[in-house]
């Protein structure tokens, strides 16, 4: 240690270490202040969606599917799809509930209406009709108007039934988070922006309303099938059900009428008019084996009996491909 050069080196190292120690102390103090409860930053254990689904469970689902591999959350992740931080406050829970199970297709207005009227949605948002929902979540209106019924680039991931509400709970949590003003709020409306308006897609065929289809009753069988076909398009049924026998989110329709199917509860059922009507109005009553219960919402409140008949007629008309 008598070598002056060695002594100088040692001293230099000590000064560097002292500087580093100072930085570390500053960092630790800042970190401690970042997570004190008095900051009132929302925590996921306090966020519940639809009364029973916790945000922490949702975060587990979010991680299990590797959502950050395509999307960003608080700006971190990949850049194939949009940032998800504020999707909940933008489009609302009913839109997410309509979209996530059949992510391959953007929800139609009718599909959104079905979700808005579900009891757990009404309990969550306090909103029972579409107009009020649009007012509360303008992002949902824009999405329905621009992309309703169109194909999306996101694949159908085949979420298990309890995973969708859990994910919604997680996105509710991230929406409630204070992210210091990020992402920045646009000062202009891109949709009406003159230079962009010419290039962007505002047309959609999914906005037609299902209302007043009650006239279907008096029509001939052929008309009934046509009405049914129109209804399944408007409602967005085809996001989950193929018109051939292929499995999408739910079972394909083609060639299944008149066959006997195994049920999830171990029994079996003949697929006839009665079975199909129940499947539309009370989907969890007789679930086909191999498909999870709780995925399909009930259409009892949105469809008149004649509408259900028309859809059943359409399904009946689908032969084996």
């Amino acid at each position, binding site marked *: 240690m008598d070598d002056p050069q060695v002594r100088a080196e040692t001293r230099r190292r000590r000064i560097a270490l002292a500087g580093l120690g100072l930085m570390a102390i*500053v960092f630790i103090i800042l970190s401690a202040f970042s997570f004190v409860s008095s900051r009132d930053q929302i925590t996921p254990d306090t966020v519940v969606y639809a009364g029973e689904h916790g945000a922490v469970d949702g975060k587990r689902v979010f991680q299990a*599917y590797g959502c950050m591999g395509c999307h960003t959350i608080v700006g971190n992740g990949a*850049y194939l799809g949009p940032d998800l931080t504020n999707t909940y406050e933008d489009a609302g829970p009913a839109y997410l509930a309509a979209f996530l199970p059949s992510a391959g297709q953007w929800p139609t207005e009718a599909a959104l209406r079905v979700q808005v009227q579900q009891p757990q949605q009404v309990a969550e948002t306090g909103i029972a009709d579409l107009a009020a929902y649009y007012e509360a979540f303008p992002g949902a209106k824009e999405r329905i108007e621009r992309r309703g019924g169109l194909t999306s680039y996101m694949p159908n991931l085949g979420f298990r039934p309890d995973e969708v509400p859990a994910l919604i709970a997680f996105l509710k949590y991230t929406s409630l988070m204070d992210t210091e003003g990020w992402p920045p709020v646009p000062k202009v409306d891109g949709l009406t922006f003159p230079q962009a308006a010419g290039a962007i897609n505002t047309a959609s065929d999914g906005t037609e309303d299902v209302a007043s289809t009650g006239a279907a009753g008096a029509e001939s069988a052929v008309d009934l099938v046509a009405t049914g076909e129109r209804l399944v398009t408007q409602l967005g049924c085809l996001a989950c059900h193929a018109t051939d026998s292929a499995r999408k989110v739910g079972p394909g329709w083609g060639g299944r009428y008149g066959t006997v199917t195994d049920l999830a509860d171990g029994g079996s059922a003949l697929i006839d008019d009665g079975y199909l009507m129940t499947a539309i109005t009370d989907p969890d009553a007789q679930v086909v084996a191999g498909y999870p219960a709780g995925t399909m919402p009930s259409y009892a409140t949105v469809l008149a009996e004649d509408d259900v008949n028309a859809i059943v007629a359409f399904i009946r008309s689908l032969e084996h491909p």
Partner: protein
Amino acid sequence: MIQYRTQRLSLRFFLLMLVLLLVQVVLGVVLSLQQTDPTLLSGIMNFNITRSQHVNLGVLWILSGFIGTILFVGPILSKRELAAPWLVKFLFVALTGITIWNAVAIYFAQKGIAGWWLGQPWIQEGIEYLEAGRIADVLILVGFAILAYVVIRTFPNVKEWNEIHWGLGIGVSALAAMWIFGMFFIGRIDLQEYFRWFVVHYWVEGVWEVIHISLIGILLVLMFKANVKAVGYAVFWGVTLVWLSGLLGNAHHYFWVGTPEFWQFWGSLFSALEPLPLILCFWHMYLDAHHDRKPLVNKPAFYFLLGSAVLEMVGAGILGFTMTFALTNVWSHGTWITPSHAHLAMFGTFGMLGLGAAYWIVPAVRGIKRFDQRFGQLSFWLVFLGMLGIGFAFAIGGTIQVFIYRTLGLNWFGSDIYPSMMLYKVLLVLFGLVFLAGVALLVFDLYTLGHRVREPEAQSAAAAYARPTSGWSRPLTGFEAGIWLLSMWVFGFVITGGLLSFNLARVQSGDPTLPYVAAAVGYPGLLLATLLFVWRFLASLEAREQRSEAAMVRGPVPVPAPTD
């Protein structure tokens, strides 16, 4: 060629590195194709799976290159054989096994299976960069512990450590220590992000940077017989500056993740200082390469080493600087501007170091004194050009994305954002293919090095001496290198100004002129200056070689120019 028998053990890590690199780059090209058409391989290998594999392999091959280099220089630094060579052999098997297991495990994300047990995801955990599940995490930790043990046991007594020993010793220990912060499931996203950047930032901008500086230092000593004391002094200041700026610089990841606003001040201030050690490293590269004026023995090795120091300064230093201020980061965050920085910095700094080390070490271990260096040189230019192009495509595509997505608020990716970025998405594919060609060539070259017949020395003496040693090839002075460095930074400031201009009322009311012009000047200017500088630097070295050969009146050696 090698003094210590156990230095041979480094070879297998380089061969593994090259395989992983090739697979990673193929997956990168697939990713760029999926960006242009998201339905490609949808349902078979979704984009998020491809990306996780791409990111994880990137980390793994860089680590493999680090390990290989450390094992090669360890005995040199210690003047004795590696401790516990059987552990090193085991480490190699473990690394291969972890790589294969992790690739399989990541695929489970497609089915939403994380393997929850005791509250932890054991198979995969779907967090960017830390996708590996707990099984892999634990095995990786064991691997790091083995590496740290071998390195520190091999080194001499602590009292005899010089700056390079300190850099590597602390580096391999901190590598393991930081990894632990990524091994817990955290419900809060702000806290999760807080600790995630412990691993990612302190690895990349702390530990890896230190290992990088130390390895560049020792390789410069080996290549140019540079003065150990001088290099050690540079390593000391490099390491010190990296940590003094980087410890609080981590704050630049805490701007928008739910942590308080005060991080914006600390992050903007300290991470603005983070380029300093990178400039120092860059400058030392210039000094050491020019201090002895002897010809380059191993051109590809030096090319990649130079590429590493330059791209570190450009990709990590300058591009990192442009987006490190809260006022610019608020726009660049979560867009394609980020990967332009990430690709240049990550591959440039660490990848090129691994490749440069491979070109130095593979022939040395195989006992090859002279080899055909043209493949190596060509692959360098392909890889370098490809990566600059990738950075360009990401940066310009990202600038457009910021305007469409954040300023106009158009959030339909399929119909608003994809079409506006499509040209740059296609460019990404094209430059990706150039990059892939370079990688394929260098993998082939390094694998067959020494097994191929050497090229005939047929070039005439006249051709070798015909090269001018004036003009573009005249010796590079410190003044000129300084001008190049300054010009790169000027373009960096233009880019910063462009990102800042997104804050102006004029831009926010829908006029993209300022940011677009700044990006159109800044990015191509910076990347072209980088390309030309490296060309100029290498041309001056080539000319030096010819001058020294002429002086020695030796037989002519074919001297392929880097670009013609």
